[in-house]
């Protein structure tokens, strides 16, 4: 069954809320066992079709590393995010682009604001998301973030989850 835009937004807004409140284990629970969370590198010539198996990405996590990322970021020894930065995820321009059975493909624009100490930076771009309807509710099977930047020169690093 095709999810409506409103149903898709509920999922994406829930994800944003988990991330902004640092409920990262709950965030990881939103992903399926066969899921991917990816962020392409700004230098990638075709970030929409690029394959992390032959191109260097910024992030290419399967479920074990999705959980590992969440778990690590909650530790005091994840120095890059200690003390935790403040983040605000804005998700907009949500479009349902394709639906097939339990699968719904979505595009959405995002802007994530991060403040670490006294510096605030923005990560902006477009997310390509595949949602899967399961008996446990709607889960994320694939999320690829394509940043509208040419380098992380202003942001420095990418230690939060987009």
């Amino acid at each position, binding site marked *: 069954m095709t999810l409506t835009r409103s149903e898709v937004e509920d999922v994406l807004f829930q994800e944003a809320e988990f991330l902004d409140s640092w409920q990262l284990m709950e965030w990881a629970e939103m992903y399926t066992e066969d899921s991917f969370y990816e962020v392409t*590198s700004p230098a990638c010539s075709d970030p929409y079709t690029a394959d992390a198996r032959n191109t260097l990405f910024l992030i290419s996590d399967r479920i074990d590393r999705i959980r590992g990322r969440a778990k690590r970021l909650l530790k005091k020894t994840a120095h890059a995010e200690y003390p935790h930065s403040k983040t605000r995820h804005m998700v907009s321009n949500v479009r349902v682009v394709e639906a097939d059975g339990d699968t719904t493909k979505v595009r959405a624009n995002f802007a994530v604001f991060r403040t670490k100490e006294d510096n605030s930076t923005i990560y902006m771009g477009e997310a390509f998301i595949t949602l899967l309807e399961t008996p446990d509710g709607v889960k994320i099977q694939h999320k690829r973030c394509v940043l509208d930047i040419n380098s992380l020169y202003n942001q420095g*690093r990418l230690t939060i989850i987009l």
Partner: protein
Amino acid sequence: MALDGWQPTKLIDADAEAGSFRVHRDAYRSDEVFEREKALIFNKCWLYLGHQTELKKKGDFFARRVGGRDIIFNLDKNGKVGAHYNTCTHRASKICREHSGNARTFTCPYHGWVFNSEGQLSSQNAKTGYKEGINDDGHLNLKAVERLEEYRGFWFVNFNPKAISLYDYLDDGRDAIDALMDQTEAQQVILSGEHTYSINANYKLLCENSYDGYHLFPVHASYFDYLRDQMAGTPAADLIDATIADYSSNGAVRGLGNGHAILDSYVPTGRPVAQWLPSMGASVKPEIEAKYARLVERFGEERANYIATTQKNLVIFPNLVINDILSVTVRVIEPEAKDRIRVTAWAMGPTDESEELRAMRLDNFVSFLGPAGFGSPDDIEMLEICQTAAAHTPVEWSEISKGFGPAEDHCKVTGAPDDEVQMQAYWTMWDRVMSGEVTLEVE
């Protein structure tokens, strides 16, 4: 915090008998020191520009900033590698505004001067006003960088026309590069995609960090926790703690001359060339073992073992890092100010590996390295808190003494993997160049 009457040699305080090696924090926090470094270090040393394999076809180019200078790195129409300053010889405009691409010619957007791929001026876009033969001496061609040389595909520039050759400059660093390039009989190539990011810290802090065995377990505790989780229930589960226990007695840090140094260590991440671990999965075992066997045939057991199993963190003075660890990264550090650097990092791999092993190599890379990995960002945080604390406290000296003692040449000393003799080698060279004791020029 510039010092009055600053003396270059006063920034290093070494007493070998007392085992004390100290670096004055003005070396990290002073604008005046940074200005002198630009003139003395970055204008005299060989600086990494790019790798031959990035230039795949004639006309391919990259616009890069190296040592504060904007350079076009390209393969001209005759197949020759070029390095020219990215400025029109007419009235200064930048002629190449793209990061990379393929071009037969470069046309200045301001008045339409056209330069061919060899940098020669081919048109001034003007029917009148110029005397014929105005460029007979070639002074209006794009200005070539003073020196451009390569070693095993790694192209470097030097802004000093009188500089010693790259070959001599690299000294024993050549052997470390050989150990990487000899991994394959095919070709080691820069893979697609790159990491470009910034750090609010002095460039030397990142050099120190890049081959620092001492910081590994404190800073990367959360990464090792992650590895433990990944290996839980496999035969490799005890490897992490065994490695931590043996780390300082297994491997070495070695000064390679001219400020270059390497950390050779053992960390159980597995290596695509060529050390198989159970955590890599059974399917790649035959390929990795075949690579190892071939290395033994080519180089003998001892060298093959070194090439295949040692984790190597190499710093080529003053700002190139080549880490041949769980994956291979080539990382260049471009200083912009005393407390600000731009970092560009690439992945490297051999052309003769399977799709599966290539995927594993890249997966290893992003698991630890880069601005979103589980390792490098924690390093970056350490460098930034070092920089800010050095800038905002009056404490004068940093202590880099671990493993320090009497030696014939502190640029060629060996120590334990968690010693600091590689940094002593770096700083000794830095001091020699800054003081003028070493000119790096042909006599």
